[in-house]
């Protein structure tokens, strides 16, 4: 197994590492903060982050330094940082581990980011189910506050940054940044129309940055080892640094593996995750969480970085790599994900809301051997009519499983329908004529 240097998971892999403040400090924790606060101008921090090439780990992969640069320069009044710890994308479980096992690494990143963007308040919006994670964070915040890393006048620099943990309450959509803001404001988590973007009109209508946990956890390392160091890792120039890939499904050793961007799924599965569970060949995999289209064994050597995965017709997304072995029903897999999307559609946009219930029902019908050949065209057409026509990217995400499985494994659908037609179980006529 090629050995890559671990960055984010390094501390927690050491035996006996608890993630407490003293453990973290022993490994050099909060040195970046000491080095940066009051010593490097905030604008320069932003410039360094831009230079590092760090891109968002939450899903969209937007360059972090560039995002920070969108905040209005001369705005008086408060600004906010929101750490997106809502991690709900099926197949993704890295943020949870980062928070539970090494919370101070995340907190240090948060304070650095607050400093760079001039925010004095940060909220960690953590998904409600992660009770343990929220307690750990709260405990860590208390430790850091007591040690002067968080709160008023950090390390005597005159810089303030308060950090609060805010628990969500069970809604995937609240991971979408504007829904997150709505939810943090105590409302239903419905995505907002953009523009305006959070950079100018965010939390309480104030300039706001939303960054993923993993994105923020990279910051202490970038600040202490320099942007050039970071920019050299992975697949420069566009996909720099490592990625914590969450490997799940039919592999021997599922789990989080931190590797430089640009490794292949083959490497990830066979060299890190121990290969396939029953030594069956891989039938399909998802490279970036439930919202990313399925790929096939033909894509096993695609480099896992933003560009290459996109070029292969999927997306790197949140880094959730789910692997399925030969024998897995792709219609069933698509349905499982579709059920998730149906359950989680916030209901704001008609195409997403109505489309998800329609798609899920049709898939269930096909799987229950009550499908018809026309259903396949309808499915594709509905997908086309949802994607790109909604307020947020959920609409694009929810059609990915169906579109991609129909693209690569259409025959499985056809077989199920043929069985249905053979059994002549049901004949459905459309209502009205087109």
């Amino acid at each position, binding site marked *: 197994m090629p050995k890559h240097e671990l960055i984010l998971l390094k501390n927690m892999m050491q035996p006996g590492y*608890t*993630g*407490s403040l003293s453990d973290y400090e022993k490994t050099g924790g909060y040195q970046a903060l000491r080095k940066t606060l009051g010593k490097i101008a905030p604008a320069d921090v932003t410039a360094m982050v831009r230079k590092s090439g760090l891109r968002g780990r939450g899903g969209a992969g937007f360059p972090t330094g560039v995002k920070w640069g969108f905040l209005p320069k001369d705005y008086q009044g408060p600004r906010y940082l929101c750490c997106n710890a809502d991690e*709900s*994308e*099926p*197949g*993704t*479980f890295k*943020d*949870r581990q980062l928070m*539970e096992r090494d*919370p101070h690494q995340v907190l240090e990143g948060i304070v650095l980011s607050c400093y760079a963007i001039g925010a004095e*308040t940060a909220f960690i919006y953590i*998904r*409600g*189910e*992660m*009770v*343990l994670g929220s*307690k*750990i964070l709260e*405990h*860590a915040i*208390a430790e850091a506050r007591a040690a002067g890393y968080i709160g008023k006048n950090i390390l005597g620099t005159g810089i303030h940054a308060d950090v*609060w943990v*805010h*628990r*969500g*309450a*069970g*809604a*995937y959509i609240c991971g979408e940044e504007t829904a997150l803001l709505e*939810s*943090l*404001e*105590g*409302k*239903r*988590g419905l995505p907002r129309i953009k523009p305006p973007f959070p950079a100018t009109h965010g939390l*309480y209508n104030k300039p706001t940055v939303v960054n993923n946990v993993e994105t923020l956890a990279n910051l202490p390392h970038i600040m202490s080892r320099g942007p050039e160091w970071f920019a050299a890792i992975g697949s420069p120039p566009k996909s720099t640094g490592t990625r914590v890939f*969450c490997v*799940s*499904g*039919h592999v021997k050793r*599922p*789990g*989080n593996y931190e590797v430089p961007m640009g490794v292949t799924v083959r490497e990830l599965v066979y060299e890190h995750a121990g290969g396939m569970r029953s030594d069956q060949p891989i039938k399909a995999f998802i490279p970036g969480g*439930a919202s990313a289209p399925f790929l096939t064994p033909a894509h096993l050597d695609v480099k896992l970085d933003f560009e290459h995965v996109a070029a292969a017709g999927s997306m790197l997304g949140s880094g*959730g790599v*789910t692997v*399925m072995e030969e024998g*897995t029903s792709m219609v069933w*897999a698509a349905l*499982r*994900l579709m*059920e*998730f999307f149906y359950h*989680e559609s*916030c209901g704001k946009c008609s195409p997403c809301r109505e489309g998800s219930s329609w798609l899920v029902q049709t898939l269930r019908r096909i799987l229950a051997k009550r499908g018809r050949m026309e259903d396949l065209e309808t499915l594709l057409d509905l997908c086309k009519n949802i994607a790109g026509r909604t307020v947020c990217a959920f609409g694009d995400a929810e059609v990915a499983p169906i579109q991609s499985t129909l693209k690569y494994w259409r025959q499985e659908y056809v077989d199920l329908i043929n069985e249905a037609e053979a059994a002549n179980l049901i004949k459905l006529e459309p209502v009205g004529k087109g």
Partner: protein
Amino acid sequence: MTFSEKYKDEITDILSRYPVKRSALIPLLYVAQRDQGYVTESAMQEIAQLLRLTPPQVYETITFYTMFNLKPTGRFHLQVCKSLMCALVGSDTLFGWIHAKLGIGPGETTADGLFSLSAVECLAACGTGPMMQVNDDYYEQLTEDKLDRIVSDLRSTGTSPLKSGPFMWPEAVESADRPSS
């Protein structure tokens, strides 16, 4: 005693974190849910008043989220992940086992009011599936044996050492050090 009297200090503390009151809504609902196991109508009304919202505004928010109960549930709420990743590693059998052991399916509660079962979507533990959450705690890499032990632990002590964590706290000092909920 009313809800706001009973949790006066905690409420003040929560309100102090947010520049805009309404942000305290979800945190306060959690307090209310902890108190009664579900959010009662009178708690909703009190919270509305505290935050200068109308009760419908509180209600619309509650119903958007899956974690708030508006009715009592069993003492142990088993929430088994049914999303694809857990399903790939056998979460469906988990439902079978639970049905066999406790006689309940998703949405049902045992007659003694101890256990309720829900099928939930991905809980960010796909690498350690199949898994379930019971009240606040995660239980991962479940097997039939583990499930047996968890159920009997819950019955006898109200918790089970098989749960995930704690990570930051050495086991020994857990109870002293760990912030209580």
